[in-house]
């Protein structure tokens, strides 16, 4: 018998190079995923500064391998001069309409 899958939308706005709780948020995303939930990490504002493939550490790649969907606000990427060729493969640029879609579908959403 199938169960209802819980969906989480973790909206991350904080600079990964300036906040220690970014690591905590990644750990939470992984833990929720390990618990069987569908988890999306949506990066906005300065959180997109961690999306370059050449950036260290590569927390986002690890999350994607664990099954967390990692999306990034296209506007925020462009605003910060992060070109499509630079972005880590784990990260999918998208627009805020995608975020609205996740909210409208009932994902439990928190903003950090």
């Amino acid at each position, binding site marked *: 018998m199938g169960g209802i899958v819980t969906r989480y939308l973790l*909206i991350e*706005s904080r600079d990964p190079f300036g906040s220690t709780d970014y690591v905590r948020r990644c750990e939470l995303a992984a833990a929720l995923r390990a618990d069987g939930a569908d988890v999306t990490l949506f990066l*906005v*504002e*300065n959180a997109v500064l961690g999306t370059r493939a050449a950036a260290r550490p590569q927390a986002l790649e690890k999350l994607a391998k664990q099954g967390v969907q990692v999306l990034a*606000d296209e*506007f925020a990427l462009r605003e910060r001069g992060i070109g499509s060729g630079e972005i880590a493969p784990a990260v999918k640029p998208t*627009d*805020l*309409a995608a*975020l*609205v*879609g996740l*909210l*409208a579908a*009932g*994902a439990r*959403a*928190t*903003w950090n």
Partner: protein
Amino acid sequence: MNDSRCLAFLLMDAPFEQARTATAFRLIDATLRAGIGARVFAYEGAVSLAVTRQKPHANAIHGRALEEEAHPTPHAWINALADLAREQGVPFDWVNCGLCVDERGADEAAPSARRGSPADFWKMAQESVNTLVIPTR
């Protein structure tokens, strides 16, 4: 296609101090463009978003006169969202927390904004498909 769904948002930040204001407005705009209604509860500093005494200004450093600079004012953003909601035929409700308005003297508000209390936010949350709280720092 429009439907009767709404999303509720709680904002906390005063304008002109951080990135969250612009992102929140972009999100509400995207909600309305998706044909979904938006209910906004402005808490604490966010009640200043609706203040009609905000004035645009010229910018000598940019070399631009008043009209050219076209400096944004959040109360105009709120009115623009209300207009968009009307065009889309979906609900738009902006409620300022009344006690927050009082303590900040932010009582000259955009016509699209009304005074309320946390009970209004709870009602919004119950009547919306989902609710997003955007906290301040």
